[in-house]
């Protein structure tokens, strides 16, 4: 039996980003061979691409960070309270939240409030809050009761049990929830284009409206590439942060 628990070999893990970069390279190479008309030229240049990508990433990352900062402490509190009512409320709201279409939330918020970047950010946070909250709560509850009792029986205060035992043991589930939220956010940030929030959705929508396939393709492939890469990166973090021995 090995003395040290080995982490999975990381060479296999580089297949994904290599494949993504290859696809991007092919697409850009193809675009380079095209004669671009004025509309396409305005869109398919480095400046425009970088701007849209930056907007998209900011939306995704900032909203996910906000969700983490808001939802995880809330879940910890809900867990501490240990009330069945609270739990039932969280689960019910979570179910309703999951049944709600993202595009509906985005557009409703835009109608009721205003269009633009801030609205997109708020709707992203609102949309991802409940799944992360529910995931974190479930993760904390799944910690084995015997482990918890042993910890309290040894004299750990409730806070110590939370930080040293419950959170580390729940971390795989919590991280999985955050990873899903991140990937979701990339998708919903694409929809943000409908409410003038910018992002790569702009390219897709323009490409469709103006019947310029090249613009459409680059926008769609870029957004897909970002989503896949973020998912891959989140997976790496998940593996690294997961406590050994679990």
């Amino acid at each position, binding site marked *: 039996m090995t003395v040290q628990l080995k982490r999975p070999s990381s060479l296999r893990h580089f297949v994904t980003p290599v494949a993504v970069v290859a696809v991007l390279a092919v697409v850009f190479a193809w675009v380079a061979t095209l004669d671009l008309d004025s509309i396409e030229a305005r869109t398919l240049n480095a400046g425009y691409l970088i701007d849209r990508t930056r907007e998209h990433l900011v939306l995704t990352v900032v909203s996910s960070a906000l969700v983490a900062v808001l939802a995880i402490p809330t879940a910890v509190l809900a867990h501490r309270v240990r009330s069945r009512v609270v739990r039932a409320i969280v689960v019910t709201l979570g179910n309703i939240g999951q049944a709600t279409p993202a595009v509906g939330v985005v557009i409703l918020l835009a109608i*009721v409030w205003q269009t633009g970047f801030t609205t997109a950010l708020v709707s992203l946070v609102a949309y991802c809050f409940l799944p992360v909250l529910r995931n974190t709560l479930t993760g904390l509850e799944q910690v084995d009761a015997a482990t918890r009792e042993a910890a309290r029986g040894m004299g750990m205060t409730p806070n110590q049990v939370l930080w040293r035992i419950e959170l580390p043991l729940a971390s795989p589930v919590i991280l999985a929830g955050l990873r899903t939220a991140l990937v979701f956010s990339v998708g919903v940030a694409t929809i943000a284009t409908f409410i003038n929030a910018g992002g790569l959705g702009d390219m897709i929508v323009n490409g469709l409206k103006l019947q310029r396939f090249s613009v459409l393709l680059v926008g769609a492939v870029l957004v897909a590439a970002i*989503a896949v890469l973020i998912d891959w990166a989140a997976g790496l973090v998940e593996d690294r942060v997961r406590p050994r021995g679990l």
Partner: protein
Amino acid sequence: MTGLHLVRLDEFLARRWEDVVDLTLQHLAAVAISLALATAIGVLIGLLVWDRPVPRAVSLTAAGIAITIPSLALLALLSPVLGLGWVPTIVSLVFYSLLPIVRNTVVGLREVPGHLVESARGMGMTSTRVLLTVQLPLAWPVIVTGVRVAAQLTVGIAAIAAYVAGPGLGVYIFRGLSSLGSVNALNFALTGTLCVVLLALLIDGVFVLVTRYSTPRGLRV
């Protein structure tokens, strides 16, 4: 704040309820068709790759990537080839449903205790027969859960399909967007969104029943 007033939502609904019902049925049809296709394809893939590590890893990774691609991007990418409307909608919904279904099929089949498979083989059953008459029924609850997850996903994603002239309640949601500033904008968007929510909850409820009644008697807890 601009539109925070439900101007005559009741009148709005009274006038358009036929529309709403029609769109809801379209939405339901789109979801049902794609789920049916995805289940057939997904379970088949699962049956073929569950015990072969390399094809299994490839299928799961491919399905995983499919679900990671943002829905608008996928719809847009399909449009030059498949046009607009029902076809690209169904195709992309099937794509998205594949991961939960394939993954749950594989997991469900693998979790069937080894000794059951062994005793079945010991009785003289071929491995295909064991797969279909022993493993598949035992894995069924897990598979149905996968279809249920896929259903929840597709109900939400189908709402975006309206942007590429697809069917369903997304039409109302986007109508709300395009009539931004007008009196009925909120009514349209709210009706569309709420109907999607209700439809999703309803479908989930149906799945709870389906799971219970299609699980073999001996397995029911």
